[in-house]
């Protein structure tokens, strides 16, 4: 009996037939976005396919499955919303199954006294946010992939949202969680407001990208939601560098905008289009949230700072337009139109996010914009924007498009682009090669350089939690 038949047979016996998908066609849903796109546009068939997908309906099922996989050296890729972008879900061998946590989609408890919500890993964030909004609350977490992603995946990728400058990334929101270890043992980290009992164990699960544990349930903070009181301001600045200086000033003076975005012209023209920019001009906008008094006060101060950098105030239309279109990309993923366009033009659009201190981010942006077109001949478009700012620095989200000659080598072109950005970023002491999409398999080859001497801690964690290396091998930590 082949490994597929045996694994499917055994898991069917353990979990019941309704929990197992093993039909090749149906399993296509397991393909990561890029593979799906290639498959549809060019009939591309990935080299490796999963043995089956386990639709896990409970922590107990996850536990039984992991125990089986641990005992039989079957590799496991956890997934929930399947929107991850760094090849986290790419199958790289012929002994892998998916554990799909999307059936675990219950909102367990909304606790408005203690301002937390507990949800199972497969709960779509959009459903949870909608539910909270109806009662006047918000998660404060709104990734662009809001229509696609689920709570487990968001925590597992250490994701961040469009309003992060005010609410923080997911790591600032998670108070507690439940998970299952690779050997099948369930664990729980109780949600408390703060804890000083040793290292923060939440962080073993947050950002672990399915390479350490399977997250079954998360408890995250919620916030009072005041959408009608939001302050907004849109500006055109002379160039990206001036915009960076203005954004830095807003942050270091201590103002708390929720959205802070600064776009270069290439990005505006290619993706956004709402502001007609000349030459080197850049588009910058801010929103401020909070209870009455706060948005006006912070907004007025931010406005003055923007003007002091020579910014032209263009009102709120362009900002409203961003709100209207901010997640639209999710509607185009998987559509026939997208595949036809891809097939006809061979152009693949992608993004890459990095981050650095204020002192270096401008130089990194300049160097990347200057050198990448030289080293990546397939580039058809390169632009960038700032979307998540901090007291000490900010991110740059490179937006790029590659023209693929041959679909089979497309991956290589994308990996070369990613490597070229890493080459630039790793030269700078205050910079990181990954801001919020996770490392996946795409940037795993550079994680040693990224973490430097602390990489050994990650290796030790992996070794002790997952000694058999069954959890998403090659993701986060490279093989070999």
């Amino acid at each position, binding site marked *: 009996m082949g490994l597929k038949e045996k694994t499917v047979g055994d898991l069917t016996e353990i979990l019941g037939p309704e929990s197992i998908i093993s039909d090749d066609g149906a399993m296509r849903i397991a393909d990561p976005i890029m593979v799906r796109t290639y498959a549809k546009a060019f009939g591309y068939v990935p080299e490796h396919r999963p043995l089956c997908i386990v639709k896990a309906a409970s922590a107990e099922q996850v536990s039984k499955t992991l125990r089986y996989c641990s005992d039989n050296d079957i590799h496991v890729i956890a997934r929930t919303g399947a929107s991850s972008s760094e090849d986290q879900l790419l199958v790289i061998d012929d002994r892998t199954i998916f554990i799909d946590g999307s059936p675990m989609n219950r909102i367990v408890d909304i606790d408005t006294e203690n301002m937390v919500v507990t949800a199972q890993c497969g709960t779509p964030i959009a459903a949870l946010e909608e539910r909270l909004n109806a009662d006047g609350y918000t998660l404060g977490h709104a990734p662009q992939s809001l229509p696609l992603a689920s709570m487990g995946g968001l925590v597992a990728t250490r994701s961040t949202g469009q309003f992060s400058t005010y609410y923080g990334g997911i790591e600032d929101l998670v108070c507690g969680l439940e998970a299952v270890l690779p050997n099948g043992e369930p664990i729980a980290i109780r949600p408390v407001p703060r804890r000083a009992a040793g290292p923060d164990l939440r962080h073993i699960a947050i950002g672990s990208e399915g390479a350490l544990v399977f997250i079954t349930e998360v408890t995250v903070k919620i916030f009072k939601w005041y959408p009608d009181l939001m302050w907004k301001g849109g500006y055109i600045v002379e160039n990206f560098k001036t915009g960076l200086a203005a954004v830095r000033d807003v942050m270091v003076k201590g103002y708390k905008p929720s959205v802070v975005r600064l776009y270069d012209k290439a990005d505006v*023209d*290619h993706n*956004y*289009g*709402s*502001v*007609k920019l000349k030459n080197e001009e850049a588009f910058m906008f801010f929103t401020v949230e909070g209870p009455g008094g706060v948005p006006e006060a912070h907004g007025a101060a931010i406005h003055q700072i923007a003007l002091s950098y020579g910014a032209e105030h263009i009102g709120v*239309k*362009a900002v*409203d*337009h961003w709100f*209207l*279109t901010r997640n639209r990309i999710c509607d185009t993923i998987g559509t026939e139109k997208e595949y*036809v*366009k891809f097939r*006809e*033009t061979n*152009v693949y659009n992608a993004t890459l996010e990095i981050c650095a201190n204020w002192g270096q981010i401008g130089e990194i942006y300049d160097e990347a914009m200057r050198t990448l*077109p030289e080293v990546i*001949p*397939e*580039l*058809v*478009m*390169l632009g960038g924007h700032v979307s998540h700012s901090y007291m000490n620095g900010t991110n740059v989200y490179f937006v790029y*498009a590659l*023209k693929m000659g041959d679909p089979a080598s497309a991956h290589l072109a994308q990996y070369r682009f990613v490597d070229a950005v890493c080459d630039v970023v790793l030269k700078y002491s205050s910079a990181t090669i990954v801001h919020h999409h996770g490392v996946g398999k795409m940037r795993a080859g550079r994680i040693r350089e990224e973490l430097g001497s602390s990489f050994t801690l990650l290796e030790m964690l992996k070794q002790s939690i997952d000694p058999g290396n069954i959890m998403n091998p090659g993701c986060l930590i490279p093989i070999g």
Partner: protein
Amino acid sequence: MKRICVCFKVVDDFDEVLPSDWDEAGGDGPDLAYVRRILGDFDEAALENALLVKDAYRALGIGADLTALTLAPGYADHILRNFAAVGVDRTVCLETQEDLRFSPERTASALADFILGGPPPDIVLAGLMTPPGGSGAVPLFLAEYLGLPCVTEAISLTPARDCVAVEHRVDSGICRREMLTAFLCTIGNARRSYLRVPTLREALRAPAPAIEHVESKIAGSRGGLKPLSVRREDRRRDCLFSEGADASDHAAFLYERVIKEALL
């Protein structure tokens, strides 16, 4: 040397208009100042098909020169700057301050003035129409003004030495014609509909995208042309609301009110 001229239009992406602006829109339509400018869908297909024709001529050893012609494109540098890199030899923007919305004759007249002012083209291509609000009449008037036969709703063009095979949609299906040049052709739901994209390197290597801005005197309609008959197309959309409590109610409603009616 074959001369190809493709007429195109840069339009506002109406998908991006804010709902509040639709609500507040007056007679002049909604505020479009902040929405993305894009190539009209059919015009994009016309440009790509013009490039395909140029490629095909080159494969036959015949030189071809491609002019892309537009009227009052507005903010469009991000669209036009790549034209040279993909193979457009000349990009001409006819500039005017006049409001040419809903004036297909005057638009066609301005385009014709420019085309007739230069060496006569062998093939003129234009998108079938430019939504939103496009009448689809510009290419038809243009063909008349240029005195060219017009093939509508082409989906592909295959040049040979002495003619061009044009596949185009007609009511009964797809018709293939062999056209002697010169002719005008509107591009409909073509087999190739997206404009090719140059790499940044190709764009850098390409000749500088000299976009010619030419003042256009819009003289008004050339007169003498009257549509033989004009009729409003009878197109309606009906809307039914299913107010059932659950999926099976909705399914029953769908079956009774929509599927059954369609089948009977």
